[in-house]
C-alpha cells in the first residue's frame, strides 16, 4: 500500500458521521484486518473487532462470489437488532465497515453518502 493521507481519510469519515446521525461509526481497515481509521461512536461495542470481522467477511465474500461464478464482491449488508453492518471492499486499499442504527431507519437513506465516502477514499489511494 502506498502513502495514505490519514488526516483526509479521517476527515471524510467524520464528515459522513456528522451528516448522518444514523451512522454509529465508520472503520477503515487494511487487508490484514488491522484498523487504519475509526470515527463516530468508537467506544460502541464491536468497533474494535470491526476491521477483523470485515476482513473475514470480505475474504469469505470473495471466495463465495468466485465459487458461484458471480462478479467481484462489492457490498455485504447484515441487519440485526444492533443495526446495519455494511462491509465494502476498497480494492487493494482495505475494507470499509459502517454500522448504522437499526430498522426502522432505512439503510437506503444513507447508502448514497456511504458510496460517496467510498469514492473519496478510493481517490485518496490513487
Amino acid at each position, binding site marked *: 500500500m502506498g502513502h495514505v493521507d490519514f488526516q483526509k481519510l479521517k476527515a471524510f469519515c467524520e464528515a459522513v458521521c456528522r451528516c448522518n446521525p444514523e451512522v454509529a461509526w465508520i472503520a477503515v481497515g487494511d487487508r490484514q484486518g488491522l484498523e487504519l481509521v475509526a470515527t463516530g461512536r468508537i467506544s460502541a461495542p464491536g468497533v474494535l473487532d470491526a476491521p477483523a*470481522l470485515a476482513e473475514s467477511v470480505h475474504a469469505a465474500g470473495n471466495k463465495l462470489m468466485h465459487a458461484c*461464478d*458471480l*462478479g467481484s464482491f462489492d457490498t*455485504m449488508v447484515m441487519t*440485526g437488532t*444492533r443495526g446495519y453492518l455494511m462491509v465494502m471492499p476498497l480494492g487493494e486499499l482495505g475494507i470499509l465497515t459502517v454500522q448504522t442504527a437499526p430498522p426502522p431507519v432505512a439503510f437506503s437513506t444513507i447508502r448514497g453518502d456511504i458510496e460517496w465516502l467510498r469514492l473519496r477514499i478510493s481517490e485518496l489511494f490513487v
Partner: protein
Amino acid sequence: MMSESPGFQENVTGFSDRRVDRTDEPIPAVEKQLKRLVADGDLLAAVLAGEDGLTIVSSESESEERSDPEIVSALVGHISRIRGFAEVSFFKDRVRDLMIGDVSGLSCHCRFFDLMDQPVTLAIVLRNSERAEEILERGETGIRRIIEIHYLGEPSDGTC
C-alpha cells in the same frame, strides 16, 4: 369466481389468504408462492433453503437472465456460516437479513427465519434491490402462512 390477481402492493397487506393460484399441498403451494414472487418482483430466482445449503423449494425467472437455484442454495450455505460468525463476534444476537452484492449490481438478499422450529433461509436474487425488503417480507409471511396453516391449522400469530 376468482378475482384477478391483486397487485404486488395490495398483496403485502393483511394476513388473509390472498393466493390466486393455490393448492392445498404445502410444498407445491410454497413453490407457487415463490413463482409469484419471481414474477411480481422481477427476480432472477427465489429459493427456500436449509442452513446447509440444500434447496427445499425454488423458482427461477423465465427470462434470459436468471440464476441457477442450486447455486443460490449453495450460496445460502456459505452465507449461513458468515452470518453465524457475525452473530457471535459482532451482533451478539440473530442477524435477520443479509445482502451480498457484486460489482455488476446483481445482489442476493437472504432472510433467516424459523419454520416449524427449523432454521430456513429465503434467498432472492435481483438487479434492483430497492424493493428487496418488501419482497422478503411478503415471501416470509406467505411461506409461514402456508406451512403453519397446513401443519398447525392456523398461523402461529393467530391471525386468519
